[in-house]
């Protein structure tokens, strides 16, 4: 067998295409993405390798293009169940043996689905690189798909949603928000599925998903940490270079359409003593040329402690513990949303204040002093987002996935410094919604906040125990 292995290894080496990484641009005094190596294997797998030797650790991150966009109709959560099943028996190991192998090494390995990719993340001691790469390759190339494991994973997924509904509503409100805002568009489908859609998924669905939407041509692998790049590259070539391609074309989503006017979803959680609210519309995508201006403006509007939203709803009025806003950026524009919560009897006051704050930001814009504060804040905090192996591996995946080069990091400071009042006003008009055009979700005790909900706009009501995130009649 050793002869065969070395021959395979040699064959892969000879057909691998090495691609020079995009050149680094001037960092203009800001943070510079450390040097890394790029390669594309013959099957299309992209490798990104960055040595970092300050701890004896390695982070390995994987993205498989497709994600929940590949879920069959009515079977939301298929990609998520696939991701979970990669951890439940692969190669020569049963589910229990697989978990034991990872954890005995002190390693961490997890898989999850996103809207547009399935991701695996691993962190391990450098000494365990061979073991952990082998486990990641087993998970992706040789999942066992045992029927009994599938049944457990599917049941646990539905039960976990029920448990989350018993917990702090802050964790789930975005799920309802996306469902309500993007209904009819793929971004409105819950990545983890709902109790209802999970029940419709079969093991054959997962196997079909695997054949169609998982393969070497969809794969991006980033490794950062304590290793030698040439050696790591060889290991990855051996592990992944011979993998088949996915059978189907990469699924994609069209640009979602913005909400005109308001519509309100009231989710009844009996006994709740606070009302949790989410106000959203279609925002901007990951590669939007004005994304940096959007970030600077969002910092001032709802992206840090002294933001307008937190100042109004928390610092000045004491209505809430926290109010914030943010962009969910994907290949197409995801949501821009505002979220907060307040005690039940203050629901109208808090939502009105959030809406008025949005109006004020859009009508008044931000002056130079405010913009200077936001620019300095973003630049001051930016290095802490690229501090660990995991941060850097995640960033390399992000850049490769969206086709961005190192300049996204290297010229960040330049872009931030260029955001002036004119640029701010422009993105306020284009990327931030008018308060008249919003998808609104309210979670709380419906009997007590129904009237407050009706004041905002036309209301549709559902129960938090309903087995989906969108108000539709059971089939």
């Amino acid at each position, binding site marked *: 067998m050793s002869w065969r292995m070395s021959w395979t290894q040699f064959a892969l080496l000879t057909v691998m295409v090495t691609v020079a990484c995009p050149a680094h641009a001037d960092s203009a005094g800001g943070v510079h993405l450390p040097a890394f190596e790029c390669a594309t294997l013959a099957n299309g797998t992209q490798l990104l390798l960055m040595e970092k030797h300050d701890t004896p650790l390695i982070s390995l991150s994987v993205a498989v293009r497709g994600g929940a966009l590949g879920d069959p109709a009515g079977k939301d959560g298929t990609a998520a169940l696939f991701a979970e099943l990669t951890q439940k028996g692969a190669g020569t190991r049963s589910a229990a043996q697989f978990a034991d192998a990872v954890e005995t090494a*002190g390693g961490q390995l997890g898989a999850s689905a996103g809207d547009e990719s399935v991701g695996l993340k691993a962190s391990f001691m450098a000494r365990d690189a061979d073991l952990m790469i082998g486990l990641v390759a087993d998970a992706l190339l040789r999942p066992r798909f045992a029927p009994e494991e599938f049944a457990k994973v599917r049941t646990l997924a539905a039960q976990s949603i029920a448990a*989350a509904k018993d917990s702090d509503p*802050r964790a789930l409100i975005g799920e309802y928000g996306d469902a309500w805002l993007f209904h009819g568009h793929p971004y409105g489908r819950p990545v983890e599925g709902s109790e209802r859609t999970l029940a419709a998924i079969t093991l054959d669905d997962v196997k079909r998903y695997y054949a169609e939407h998982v393969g070497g041509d969809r794969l991006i692998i980033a490794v950062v940490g304590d290793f030698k790049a040439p050696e790591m590259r060889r290991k990855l070539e051996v592990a992944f270079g011979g993998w088949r391609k996915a059978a189907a074309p990469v699924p994609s989503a069209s640009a979602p359409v913005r909400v005109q006017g308001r519509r309100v979803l009231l989710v009844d959680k009996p006994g709740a003593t606070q009302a949790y609210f989410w106000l959203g519309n279609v925002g901007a995508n990951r590669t939007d040329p004005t994304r940096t201006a959007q970030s600077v403006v969002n910092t001032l509007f709802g992206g840090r402690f*002294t933001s307008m939203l937190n100042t109004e709803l928390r610092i000045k009025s*004491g209505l809430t513990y926290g109010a914030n806003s943010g962009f969910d950026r994907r290949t197409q524009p995801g949501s821009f949303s505002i979220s907060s919560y307040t005690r039940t009897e203050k629901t109208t006051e808090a939502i009105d204040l959030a809406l008025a704050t949005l109006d004020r930001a859009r009508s008044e814009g931000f002056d130079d002093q405010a913009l200077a504060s936001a620019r300095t804040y973003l*630049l*001051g905090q930016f*290095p802490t987002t690229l501090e660990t192996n995991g941060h850097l591996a995640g960033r390399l995946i992000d850049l490769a996935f969206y086709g961005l080069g190192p300049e996204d990091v290297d010229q960040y400071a330049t872009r931030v410094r260029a955001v002036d009042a004119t640029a701010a006003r422009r993105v306020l008009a284009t990327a931030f919604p008018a308060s008249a055009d919003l998808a609104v979700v309210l979670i709380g005790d419906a009997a007590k906040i129904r009237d407050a909900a009706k004041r905002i706009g036309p209301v549709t009501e559902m129960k938090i125990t309903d087995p989906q995130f969108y108000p539709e009649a059971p089939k």
Partner: protein
Amino acid sequence: MTHTLLRDTGLLPRLACVAAALIASCGAPALAAADSLPGAEQIVTRTLPNGLKIVIWPDSDIPNVAMYTWYRAGSRNERPGITGISHFFEHMMFKGTSTRPEGEFDRVMEANGGSNNANTRADVTVYEDWFPNTVTELIFDLESDRMRNLNLDPKAVESERNVVYSERRSSIDNDNFGTLMEQVQATAYLAHPYEIPTLGWPSDIEGWKVQDLKDYYQKYYAPNNAVMFIVGDVKPEEVFGLADKYLAGLKAQPAPEPVTTREPPQLGERRIRVVREAQTPLIAMAWHAGAAPDRETRVMEVLLAILGSGDSSRLHQRLVEQEQAAVEVGTYLHQGFDPGLAWIFAVVPPGGSTARTESLIDAEIARIAKEGPTPGELTKSRNQALAGFWRGLETISGKAEALGEYEVFHGDYRKLFDAPAVYESITAEEVRQAAATVLRPDNRTVGVLEPKPAAAPAEKGSKGGAR
């Protein structure tokens, strides 16, 4: 106070981090080979004449600094009537001084590229600043100002009272796990102030007086009751110069009266039942264990890891994978100045029997109390601790937190680097004995959260039934 604006998108609460009222810290690092830690030899300390100790760990990986100020004051120092005041006081530390109006602290820090947060625990209150190394002096100015000149404006007190109440509603009242843990903790202690929820009981949140806050400031926010940790791209001599300039003038205060109450031995199992709107029943068990620096606490860490850390752990394999008697299981160990609680939690499937889940947990405890861990399990827990240690030290924040844990709870930050030897020395017999002597029924409180009958439709095909 959480200044963090990150939104949690996870579907499940992270069990170990679920209730702010209980959290000493999540994912506390453990143990590694001291001599292989790059830069550790550059750690320097100085104690100012007023008693404020400063620990500096230079690290130029990024051009930033983490400054953590630990006060030895938390909900353990409270009494009925002022429960939650440590946490409330933490909020008030951001609300203005005699030289800077309300909001100025955060406005100035953020405008200069810094961010901050703070957390209050049963034992300590920790203030955290993260900033570019070019503004270190400004941060010293801001911190020294609120240590010296805090202005407790009655109007700001009333507004912030509502903010804290909102925090409580989110973390405790509208979160079933938060609710259950608070009730179990309050039941587990008869005498010791660890019974007090860190966020405070609602009637005390409504009742705190400005004078209570002034007394608290005077007593606990003294330089001799604090330790400051500065990790990042700094030159120690410059930082000590700033400390002399900004902090040396703070006046030392008489040491706060020590907490002397000791929890009497528990004489038998205590059980509580909590009824809430719910689909998933919950179980929380808590045993009286050791204090942070005790060897028995290191052993308990190992025991709980073997029982409940990761998918390969005994409880996960038995309850979640083999028996489908739990959606999730987890463990948590409170490590403080005084003997804390060791916890095991389980989320029971909708319609499932809590009695069955509980009996399976009992069976796993009995098994390890009889047979002890396997050699493979001991190896696994050591490797997890080693890797976790390194992960904890990947960031300047992680280093500041680890130094704080060891300096404040273990008495000397250098013990962080002695830990590997302690850890390696733990034997299978010690782990077995911990299970037999600590995790016994008479030493525990069991809390069960059950759905209100009307709101608990039994799911099709699930075993058991609604009670």
